[in-house]
């Protein structure tokens, strides 16, 4: 068991290196990086400067000379070949240093830590919400398979599956928030959050802001988790050990809830680990729509503005979370299912 975990952790390193090398290479060939941005900004400013009346201070204008550009290129480390840059980045990563953001000139780790609470808040709540609704619903649907209840909830669930979260978010924002004015238009808290009189007013403010995004976050997961739960209960209900339990005279209720249900939780354990990264990293589409300043939005804006250290930092954290999540899934399965042995 311990050697299995160690081997899995060791196997993560080649994967991590592969992912970051590919991303690093991509950043090398993408135009619009910080140097390009400096150039275009300097160009715009010189244009403006030459048109200004009495702009005699030519030496003071912001035109970048070739030497200045070289200094900037060296500052960003772009004068070295990509593998040297990559090596440096990797060495820093080994010391848990993700570098500095090109945009804000603050350490990437600080930036990420500052956005993390918002994402964890949304991730955790949708996580709990999804599991608390899906497990009972899935069990109920399995027990009442092919009943009116089952068919009705199936239609609802498929409707949920067929609704992209960002489309639902747009719909809710346009109608429920803008037209009915029932919810705030976005953000994590109100602008006057600091001055809210009581603790409960603050709590309500956060909850009030998060209802619409949470619905949009969770809508896609409800379907897959409920179906997963239902199928797994169905499968166990038709298994031999339930038949044996019934044959021995155990009640139907008891056979389902003590025998079938426990075994049905195994596939849920598998998805548990996989969902960790999804929930923590957020969905940048929904964060963008509701203007929530979380990890998803940070990742998106850093891609758009070519803030490579932040892009790479988020990528590394996301990849580690995914890989650890996969490992956790396997361990959860082993814990829940004694038949699983690691070799």
């Amino acid at each position: 068991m311990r050697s299995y975990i160690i081997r899995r952790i060791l196997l993560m390193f080649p994967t991590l290196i592969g992912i970051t090398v590919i991303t690093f290479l991509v950043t090398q060939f993408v135009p619009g990086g910080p140097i390009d941005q400096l150039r275009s900004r300097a160009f715009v400013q010189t244009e403006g400067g030459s048109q200004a009346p009495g702009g005699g201070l030519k030496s003071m204008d912001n035109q970048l000379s070739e030497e200045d550009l070289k200094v900037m290129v060296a500052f960003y480390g772009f004068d070295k070949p990509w593998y040297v840059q990559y090596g440096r980045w990797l060495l820093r990563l080994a010391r848990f240093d993700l570098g500095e953001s090109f945009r804000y000139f603050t350490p990437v780790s600080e930036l990420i830590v500052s956005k993390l609470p918002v994402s964890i808040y949304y991730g955790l709540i949708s996580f709990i919400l999804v599991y608390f609704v899906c497990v009972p619903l899935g069990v109920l649907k399995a027990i009442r398979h092919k009943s009116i209840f089952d068919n009705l909830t199936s239609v609802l669930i498929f409707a949920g599956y067929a609704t992209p979260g960002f489309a639902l978010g747009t719909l809710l924002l346009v109608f429920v928030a803008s037209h009915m004015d029932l919810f705030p238009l976005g953000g994590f808290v109100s602008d006057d959050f600091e001055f809210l009189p009581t603790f409960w007013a603050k709590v309500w403010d956060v909850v009030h802001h998060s209802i619409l995004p949470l619905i949009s976050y969770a809508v896609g997961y409800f379907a897959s988790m409920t179906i997963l739960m239902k199928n797994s209960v169905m499968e166990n209900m038709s298994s031999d050990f339930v038949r044996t339990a019934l044959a021995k005279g155990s009640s139907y209720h008891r056979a389902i809830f003590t025998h079938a249900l426990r075994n049905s939780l195994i596939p849920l354990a598998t998805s548990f680990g996989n969902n960790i990264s999804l929930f923590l990293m957020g969905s940048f589409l929904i964060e963008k729509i509701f203007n929530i300043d979380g990890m998803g939005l940070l990742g998106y804006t850093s891609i758009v503005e070519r803030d490579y250290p932040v892009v790479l930092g988020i990528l590394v954290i996301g990849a580690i979370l995914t890989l650890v999540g996969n490992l956790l899934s396997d361990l959860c399965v082993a814990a829940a299912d004694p038949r699983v042995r690691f070799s």
Partner: protein
Amino acid sequence: MRLLNFMHRNSKVDRERVHSSQNEGIQPRQSQVSNLSPITRRRIQRFKSIKRGYYSLWILAFAIYLSFFAELLMNSRALAVRFEGAWYFPTFHFYSGRAFGEDYESEANYRELKKKFEVSGHNYVLLPPIPYNPYENDFALQGNPPYAPDSRHLLGTDSSGRDVLVRLFYGFRIAIIFAILLTVSGYFIGTVIGAVMGYFGGWVDLLTQRAIEIWSTMPFLYLCIIIASIFEPTFMILLGILLLFSWINMTYYIRTEVYREKAKDYAVAAKSMGAGHLRIIMRHLLPNSLVPLVSYFPFSVVGGIYSLTALDFLGYGLPPPTPSWGDLLNQGLENAMNAPWITAATFTALVVTLLLITFIGEAVREAFDPRQFSRYK
């Protein structure tokens, strides 16, 4: 306590597989519809018996069929013009205003012509049911666009004065063709790679698995945005970008199927008779491993439409002025207060389409699932 519909799961699966492999031996060519193997016929029968999915398939097929005639249904060009005794069919042909006795060189305005001819009486214009095309900016109304729904534009216009209904319909055709092409080509690549992994196993399998693990951990929408910001995305480039990632899932399923099939007697027999790798894979293993292709197809189409709409929504998808659902959703968000009809119409179109495909997918999955659950009551 009654035993309902009990059938042991594993024995059922095995019987199915044996069936299909036997049939393969007896009737090597089964391309005719009437020659479908009994198991395929039973699956189709089961699919038909699931009414929700079966009717969804008909509705969707009809919508796709209609969308191929979009130019005849929603277009600013007339279907037919009777002018001075001659017939003109302008749907796929440019006629300037002069051709119909007007004094301008630009394309004839058939809506104006119709009004004019109706007054004069003897010439005739037959317009499509909705006489607007998806690129046309209709500024003839009072005030600034977006215009609210009225008899002229049934679902209103977007912020450039283009008819929302027309753009939704053309956008539907683009989205569905895009998603189906993406799925088919992704499945092709995935099947080839998955079959190679499953058949050869060993180091090939291990190395490819590592590579796939790396590739699948890459955040795919991020990469799409980066690539889309370098190249001006056209339909084919966007298809290529999404194809980079859409093949991955299918390799898992095909790999497992081929892995299982190659250990069976018929595969070993073919090998012992001297069949080559390619022949074993193509003629023997793949035909017996294609169930996942069919049963996941609808869900992959849903995924394709989702990805295209999301990229369009962010502005990294098809270039404007291509009619697209994502673009319409974005406009709806930007005009949240003054044009709610854009969001309402687009959301409905998107969700209804995806829901139909989901119903089909669920029915297909159920029809192809060899597991029959027994119930003890």
